[in-house]
């Protein structure tokens, strides 16, 4: 690099990693459009996501034990400029997002060919990369307004991606429209919240915000801002009762899109919630407000039970999983509501574990849709016998969704139950395990359909193509691997939880 002439200390590649993390997928999108070839589009997208995955892994290893990396965009020190700030909490979420995107792309190759018209493929992948960029940008940034900008990049591309399901079912369009309206209201609420904060503090940098709120105390404006940020992000996170857009969007979106959305987009919103709850507003503030106990806890519990209950009665595999997602988001909120180290660790690790679990399940359904053209149970009878390699990962994902020991889902539920006991809320602990039983029911329904019913007459189904099987099996193995070797997610999650609970974002100098 040509930095030798200037007195400025040339940045090394390692120092540039935080921005490259977002920049690599970002630049891919216009490149795809510029080149305009759909095979190249896929290849570019895949290569970019692999690079991004490697970077996010490197970043996570750097902050795994604590501490943070700050990157000043444009060379302007915050609060004047925008800052990227990586710590264990967002590094873990970024690893999840980049891993899922990297695995979704090979899966998408065949699925998109099947579900979307060939002439739209190039733009589809461009949109996909934009969505991915937006998610990464939201997670990595340390600037409150920058969150909004990248949130909108991902949201706009998400609306379009969901609408691409219109080729199979026209309801994808209204799903996308509803999502657009709800999502925009949510984003606007978020902007109002940021505005209130800005009004009371004069800054947009999260660390600076935290500092000023901690030093100057709160007032009614800041508290109202808090409410708007929670509702705004709650809409994006499909927090009960703001989840109404989710079932339709997940059901009618193209399979590959559902995989990406279910595994990453709500997690991103939960992460932002966490960041604002704990890092910008400090834990004492929240504790005084008692908002956790009075608001999050009941909503989380209602979500866990009502959404699971609805899921039990679904006849469409995809829609069942969508409702299950709402319930699982309830678990994450419950972990926040516990307000202790184990609870937050549980939330963080459940974000990760549920991400990989749902990804494998939706991929499985996508593979079945590719082969049978339907995700309704009565068209999937006995497929476990004709395409065992395709269906087995679904079973593993299902077990992880239930939280059977030895799977990733178990680890997070364990942490949540443990957190409940640490607070002495044994009643909540029992509710958590009881709601898992509902998961047993809806997962087992699918498994019985896939294995125990007789396949339809003359079913001669081939296994899903390799490009689908490989990512599915990687995720399925990850579901088991992270259920046993919990070092990576649990270690990072507990560091993250410590960072969050210590309050003001990055004020640990």
């Amino acid at each position, binding site marked *: 690099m040509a930095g030798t002439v200037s007195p400025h200390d040339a940045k090394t590649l390692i120092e540039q990693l935080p921005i490259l993390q977002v920049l690599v997928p970002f630049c891919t999108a216009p490149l795809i459009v510029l080149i305009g070839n759909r095979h190249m589009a896929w290849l570019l997208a895949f290569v970019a996501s692999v690079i991004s995955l490697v970077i996010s892994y490197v970043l996570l290893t750097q902050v795994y034990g604590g501490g943070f990396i700050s990157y000043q965009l444009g060379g302007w020190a915050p609060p004047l400029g925008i800052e990227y700030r990586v710590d264990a909490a967002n590094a873990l979420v970024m690893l999840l997002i980049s891993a899922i995107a990297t695995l979704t792309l090979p899966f998408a190759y065949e699925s998109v060919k099947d579900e979307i018209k060939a002439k739209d493929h190039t733009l589809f992948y461009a949109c996909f990369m934009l969505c991915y960029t937006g998610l990464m940008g939201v997670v990595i940034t340390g600037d409150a307004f920058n969150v909004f900008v990248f949130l909108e990049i991902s949201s*706009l591309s998400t609306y379009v991606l969901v*609408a691409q399901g219109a080729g199979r079912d*026209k309801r994808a369009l209204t799903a996308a*429209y509803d999502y657009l309206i709800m999502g925009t209201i949510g984003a606007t609420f978020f902007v*109002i919240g940021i505005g209130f904060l800005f009004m009371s503090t004069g800054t*947009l940098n999260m660390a600076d915000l935290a500092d000023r709120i901690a030093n100057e105390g709160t007032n009614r404006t800041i508290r109202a801002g808090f409410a708007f940020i929670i509702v705004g992000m709650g809409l994006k996170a499909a927090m009960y009762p703001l989840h109404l857009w989710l079932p339709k969007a997940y059901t009618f979106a193209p399979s590959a899109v559902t995989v990406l959305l279910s595994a990453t987009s709500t997690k991103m919103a939960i992460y932002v919630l966490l960041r604002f709850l704990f890092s910008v507003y400090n834990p004492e503030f929240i504790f005084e407000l008692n908002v956790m106990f009075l608001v999050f806890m009941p909503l989380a519990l209602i979500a866990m039970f009502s959404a699971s209950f609805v899921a039990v009665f679904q006849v*469409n595999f995809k829609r069942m999983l969508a409702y299950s997602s709402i319930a699982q988001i309830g678990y994450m909120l419950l972990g926040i509501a516990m307000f202790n180290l184990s609870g937050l660790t549980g939330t963080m690790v459940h974000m990760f574990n549920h991400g990989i679990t749902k990804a494998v399940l939706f991929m499985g359904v996508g593979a079945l849709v590719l082969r049978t053209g339907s995700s309704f149970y009565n068209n999937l009878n006995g497929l476990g016998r004709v395409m065992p390699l395709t269906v087995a990962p679904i079973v593993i994902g299902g077990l992880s969704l239930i939280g059977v020991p030895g799977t990733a889902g178990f680890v997070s539920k364990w942490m949540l139950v443990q957190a409940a006991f640490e607070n002495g809320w044994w009643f909540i602990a029992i509710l958590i395990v009881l709601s898992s039983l509902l998961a047993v029911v809806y997962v087992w329904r699918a498994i019985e359909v896939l294995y125990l019913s007789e396949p339809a007459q003359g079913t001669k189904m081939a296994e899903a193509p390799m490009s689908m099987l490989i990512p599915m099996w990687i995720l399925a193995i990850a579901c088991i691997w992270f259920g046993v070797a919990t070092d990576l997610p649990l270690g990072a999650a507990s560091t993250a939880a410590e960072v969050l609970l210590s309050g003001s974002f990055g004020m640990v100098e």
Partner: protein
Amino acid sequence: MDWDFIAGHVNYWMFIVLMMTGLYIVVSSGNLVKKIVGLNIFQVAVFMLYISIGKITGGTAPIFPSNSKGYLEIDPSIVYSNPLPHVLILTAIVVGVATTSLGLALIIRIREEFDTVESDDLVKIEQQLTSADNKEHGDAMGGMA
């Protein structure tokens, strides 16, 4: 609540009235296009709130005057309004129009597929489709969609 307070806050309350009018249109209107109009009004009202944060009484637009040679001259007596909210809102306006154009494009597609842009009718059509799904797939499984 003294007079100063009211005079200093009445602007905010106006913005809030506008915001809520916009939000009301979004939530209550049945026509998809009108919903988008409502969304625009809602957002624009929020933008006004932001811009008003930056206003300083007696201030002027944050552009430094320059003389013919192009050098900047700074007059310490001039108070400039806060430029930061302007920047934020420039971005937000662009985001808003992007959302609007996407929403409208979706509406056009919806009209082509469903032949209506009224949410009442759409809900009805969707209910029919769902109950058809149920009949086809649900009865066999003893569940509902």
